[in-house]
């Protein structure tokens, strides 16, 4: 299992909601497969907890529909490996990143770092294209993810 698991999720048929999936495509081939695994999903299911438990670091990438400026990238540390992230949401069919990490810790005894990287979207209507602001911010998003991966790999190599 790779040391870093990158989970990009969203609906590529809802414009900016597919930004993370596009980022995943851009990241493909940039890293050694035994060091970084990239998965691209519509939504997060509990099955992901097992894969997360086998990684030393998990990076979730998603489009955010918050109040930020379109294209704004935000990195949040969810877990430093010492405990569960706060406020896991109850399960319906889709889980939040914190729930995946929580399940990995509770069910598999995982010790992992977890990060959430979001890019604020502007248009979540039907369609396969990104809004100009989000399209323009993709290199910044990749840069942030790349930095996180390098940081995680560096820690993993030392451990």
């Amino acid at each position: 299992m790779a040391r870093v698991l990158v989970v990009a999720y969203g609906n590529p048929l809802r414009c900016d909601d597919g930004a993370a999936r596009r980022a995943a495509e851009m990241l493909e081939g940039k890293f050694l497969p035994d060091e970084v695994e990239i998965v691209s999903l519509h939504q997060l299911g509990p099955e992901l907890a097992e894969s997360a438990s086998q990684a030393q670091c998990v990076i979730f990438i998603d489009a955010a529909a918050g109040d930020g400026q379109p294209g704004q990238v935000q990195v949040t540390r969810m877990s430093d490996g010492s405990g569960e992230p706060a406020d896991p949401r109850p399960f319906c069919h889709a889980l939040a990143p914190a729930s995946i990490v929580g399940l990995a810790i509770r069910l598999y005894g995982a010790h992992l770092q977890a990060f959430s990287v979001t890019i604020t979207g502007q248009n979540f209507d039907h369609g396969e294209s990104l809004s100009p602001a989000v399209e323009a911010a993709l290199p910044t998003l990749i840069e942030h993810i790349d930095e996180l991966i390098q940081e995680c790999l560096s820690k993993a190599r030392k451990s």
Partner: protein
Amino acid sequence: MKGNTIVIDPVTRIEGHSKITLHLNDDGRVEDARFHVTQFRGFEKLAEGRPFYEMPSLMARICGICPVSHLIASAKACDSLLAVKIPPTADKLRRIFGLAQVTQSHALSLFHLSSPDLLLGMDADPAKSNIFGVAEKNPALALDGIRLRQFGQKIIEQLGGKRIHPAWIVPGGVSEPLTEANRDAILWAIPDALAIAERTLEWFKSTMEGFREEISTFGNFPTMFMGIVKKDNGLTFYDGKLRIVDASGHVVADDLDPTQYFDYIGEKVEPWSYLKSSYYKPKGFPDGIYRVGPLARLNVADRCGTPRADQELAEFHELQRTAVLSSFHYHHARLIEILYCIERLEQLLNDPEILSKHVRAVARPNALEGVGAAEAPRGTLFHHYKIDEQGLIRWVNLIIATGQNNLAMNRSVLQVAKHFVQGKRLNLGMLNRVEAVIRCYDPCLSCSTHASGQMDLQIQLVSPSGEILDEVVRS
């Protein structure tokens, strides 16, 4: 509570948006109950004008839980338009795909959606009735749920290239043969999946004694049951004849051709829901009420055709001397079907022809109308298409399992509400049970109304004058 109406809105741990209204009489007792489906998509209209060969992929988009079932029914309708007999290996591969789909969907329903009710009890705090509550109380059960669903999803991915919305099934067969490596990988995983199914079934049966009140009140009433069976009346998910039995277990209709469904299945639209209600035409509406899905399939089937599932089916049929009536037993039936699916997968994968490269028949349209029917996890699924001379879709009709269970779901909610709702206030145990009875059917509202969304529940308590007495919303 507002006036004399209880509203539960939204219903949680189901697929889609819905609400429930409970109508009280002047004495404050529940007189009527309605399960409203409040979402709408209309895939039948969206498909008009599209080339027929796009239909399997388009129809798979109806649902992220059971895209494979829509792929199968849609491809069968397209086979009918092509007027081809698909290669035997393609037939077997489609069956494998369908069995994997049923396994993962049933695992989702039982482990992730309903096991909190079964493990933590119907009076548990909704904040804890979720997979985290299960993980805390019985981590082995939570792990088994994850592994069993993974097993089914992995097969779908190995055959179709991805877990959700695979496009591997095509008109005339499948697009790629099965590789030896994937065949061996699936076979390797079967013993573990089988062991999970066996121990979960034992666990479930050991809990049933604690749910006697629910068993007697969760959709425990006479209806007919319908499902596709093989020629020998054995369980099947891919094709066969339609069979209908009544509440006493007697055969009402047999050897019905699924492609002629319109002769015996009617659909009624209610003004308060986007979900149509199906009924058996010869008995009219609403007397033609019938149920589909795991409970119905095991009521209409004489045998499963695999050793362990047959043993369990015999035991299941002993639950009641008539047909097994309580919808609570959908859970039990679901587990037996999981067992069957895994055993049957092993049989099919060991077939010497399964690696054959001949997996697709190619033809131009040779008919202007085609029907495909199959058993989806939630029940019988019909896709019916009409095309023009250019092969463009002109008319579509989809009859989905959840619509066929609509009358029974409404009646089940009424039965539970009459038994558990006391007075003009909603309490936790009552709310949980009203939700839980709907969950027995594992309704897929996105499929049945063809809508997008989250899993929500709304319950309203309504007075005789229409005033809303109480309302609870969960999301």
